[in-house]
């Protein structure tokens, strides 16, 4: 396969059924405004932000409501014009109570975003640029929600030679990045040009899997002549969207284990993040809404929606016709997503999809003994031995687990997906990694 031109990929991995056909041709539509919005202060990786509004205060759409709580933290803006009704604990998707700002939308407001004049990012210094991105509240929209400005502020002695834009969307069911590439190619390409220029990269590569030919075409059609941006078609394989796998697929280079892509001069960003970067500099719109896919047999009208951040998930699912057969709702993709404990939780910056699964999909086969068939070894993009890790994790042999490089695991779940004996391999690994981290924290 790899010898064919334009069929680049990483080694190993799995090919789950894509299930993208039910939404990939549905254009992005706007989710109507609802009554109340919930904005958790810690919806990104890093320190939670600090609220700068109090209950009772009036806010407008796009107004700053919480400022960064540190460097690895970002800003939060009101997705609607309305009134702050509460700053306090609210239940988030995993069932935990977290501090959140609740805003009641003003029913008489047009909810029109008031644009500001474009700002020229090219005129800014690099630090000023990163600070501006932090003010926009921008995070990686692929799902991890890592504050973007942290990646843009290169540490001393590090240089970004190559910018990689992640348009793989390798998770089944999800098609929102695909739609962004098809419908907003100009914004994506402009965002990439801005970022490549600001980081001083010698080139930018947009990696897109071949199951999105219209996405590849529309991006290519918007590349300016002589651009240093390349659209790189990749073979369809999971987990290609994992940044180290993506770098391997595009450049055939391995990021050393335990290091960041920046250590080999690469910065990776998501396509949808690029469109938001353009929105910020050209229209002054911070990250107050995002595209996401609502799909699965539990909804009658699957859709690709642009949803204001903070919209309760129950409202989004109702809008798409959630039916009574729904047994499980997953936030994110079906391979790495998180099952929701409550539908009162809101859409956050990292929500790339909402999947409603029915009974026949949530009953996994009974677990059999591991027959050491080796399927998991052939699935693991990190070339670990998942069957061994699972065995050691069950036995609680943490020192040996570390010796077997359990911390290299990216928890993509390809091993569990492929296991014929239904051993919950990645679940065991996740628990073991947590224990190892807790032990380390206790010791040091």
């Amino acid at each position, binding site marked *: 396969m790899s010898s064919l031109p334009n069929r680049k990929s990483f080694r190993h991995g799995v090919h789950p059924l894509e299930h993208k056909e039910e939404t990939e041709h549905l254009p992005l539509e706007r989710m109507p405004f609802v009554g109340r919005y919930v904005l958790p202060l810690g919806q990104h990786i890093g320190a939670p932000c600090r609220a700068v509004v109090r209950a009772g205060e009036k806010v407008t759409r796009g107004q700053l409501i919480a400022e960064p709580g540190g460097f690895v933290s970002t800003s939060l803006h009101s997705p609607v014009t309305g009134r702050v009704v509460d700053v306090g604990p609210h*239940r988030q998707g995993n069932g935990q109570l977290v501090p959140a700002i609740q805003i009641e939308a003003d029913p008489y407001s047009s909810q029109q975003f008031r644009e500001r004049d474009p700002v020229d990012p090219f005129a800014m210094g690099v630090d000023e640029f990163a600070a501006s991105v932090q003010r926009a509240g921008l995070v990686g929209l692929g799902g991890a929600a890592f504050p973007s400005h942290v990646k843009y502020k290169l540490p001393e002695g590090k240089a970004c030679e190559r910018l990689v834009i992640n348009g793989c969307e390798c998770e089944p069911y999800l098609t929102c990045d695909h739609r962004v590439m098809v419908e907003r190619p100009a914004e994506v390409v402009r965002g990439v040009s801005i970022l490549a220029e600001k980081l001083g990269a010698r080139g930018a590569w947009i990696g897109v899997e071949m199951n999105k030919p219209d996405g590849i075409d529309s991006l290519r059609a918007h590349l300016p002549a002589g651009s240093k941006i390349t659209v790189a078609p990749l073979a369809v394989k999971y987990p290609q969207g994992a940044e180290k796998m993506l770098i391997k697929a595009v450049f055939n280079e391995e990021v050393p284990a335990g290091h960041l892509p920046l250590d080999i001069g690469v910065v990776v960003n998501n396509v949808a993040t690029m469109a938001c970067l353009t929105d910020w500099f050209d229209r002054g719109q911070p990250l107050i809404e995002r595209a996401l896919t609502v799909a699965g047999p539990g909804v009658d009208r699957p859709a690709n929606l642009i949803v204001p951040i903070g919209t309760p998930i129950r409202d989004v699912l109702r809008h798409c016709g959630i039916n009574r057969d729904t047994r499980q709702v997953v936030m994110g993709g079906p391979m790495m997503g998180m099952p929701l404990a409550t539908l009162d939780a809101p859409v956050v910056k990292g929500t790339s999809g909402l999947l409603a699964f029915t009974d026949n999909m949530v009953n996994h086969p009974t677990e059999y003994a591991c027959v050491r068939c080796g399927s998991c070894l052939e699935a693991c993009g990190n070339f670990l031995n998942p069957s061994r890790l699972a065995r050691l994790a069950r036995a609680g042999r943490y020192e040996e687990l570390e010796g077997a490089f359990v911390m290299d695991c990216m928890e993509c779940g390809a091993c569990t997906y492929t296991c014929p004996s239904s051993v919950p391999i990645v679940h065991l690994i996740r628990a073991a990694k947590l224990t190892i981290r807790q032990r380390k924290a206790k010791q040091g």
Partner: protein
Amino acid sequence: MMAGDPRLLLQSAPFLRRGITTPRLMTEVIIGMGPVILAAVYFFGISAIFVMLATTAGAAGAEWLLGPARPRGRTLKDGSAILTGIVLALCLPPGFPLWMAFLGGAAGICLGKLAFGGLGQNMFNPALVGRAFLQAAFPGAITTWSAQGDIGGFFTVRASNFAAPFMQATPDAVATATPLGLMKFEHQTTPLTDLLLGNTAGSLGETCAIVILLCGVVMAVRRAFDWRIPAAILLSVTVFSTVVWAFNTEKFPAPWAMLTSGGLLFGAVYMATDPVTSPVTPRGAWAFGAGIGVIVVLIRLWGGLPEGVMYAILLMNAATPLIERVTQPRPFGRGAIEHE
């Protein structure tokens, strides 16, 4: 505590499964063995069916009786005991007393699998443990080969099949030597066409080389087993026996005779590939197969027995943990793997 919507099911990602289960893998191997079973029945008549039923009954019975309880017989569902029974039958002679066959199946499961903690924990291929047990307990009966067509017709049953337990098993009137026995003790060669088509004496499943090869190729393509193991075995036997043969073409058998006679092909395709007892690592699979090939040739040419596939596989089974230890894959983004 009101943690949320009570109807929502919480599980751990991933939420999708490939949908291939272990029982299905076992079934696939049994189906992949179908043509070999049919060939055995075609060549050896109804006796073949009796021997297979006896070993399978022994294996399944032992699994049911001595396997994990609650509910009893739970582990029968994974299909591995039945597979063990069939594989064991296919490496026994057609006129083998049924009570011994039953005992062999039970011994394979008990000593070869359950003693280690059940499926996935066993060190040795259970079918081969069963056969080793029979070889030690009944060396006479297990080396009494009857030729094909030595009996009147398909439905004629060999008398020795129904020998009473613990009485002297009466050897068949027409006992024939296997090609390997002829090769070793009488320096006779068997024509290659006979070896390929199965027109020789031998165990039930091992005589027809062509059928085994074709089944093996189909199963390898369908990824029912790790193709590297049979490939490595056949490669190493070919290389090793060619080298030896080149030294003295008079004294040593030709490599093609080595490849197609005895249980080599059957062992390479159906026994060495048992995933539980072979290395999971790709490089380990090559080393494992190569080791089997070398030991087979050593035993056949210089050992006291005419055939060495069983011991070769059992020995390499024992070496599997060691092989795995030194052939762990190189993790992504790391240099040469550091061993502890």
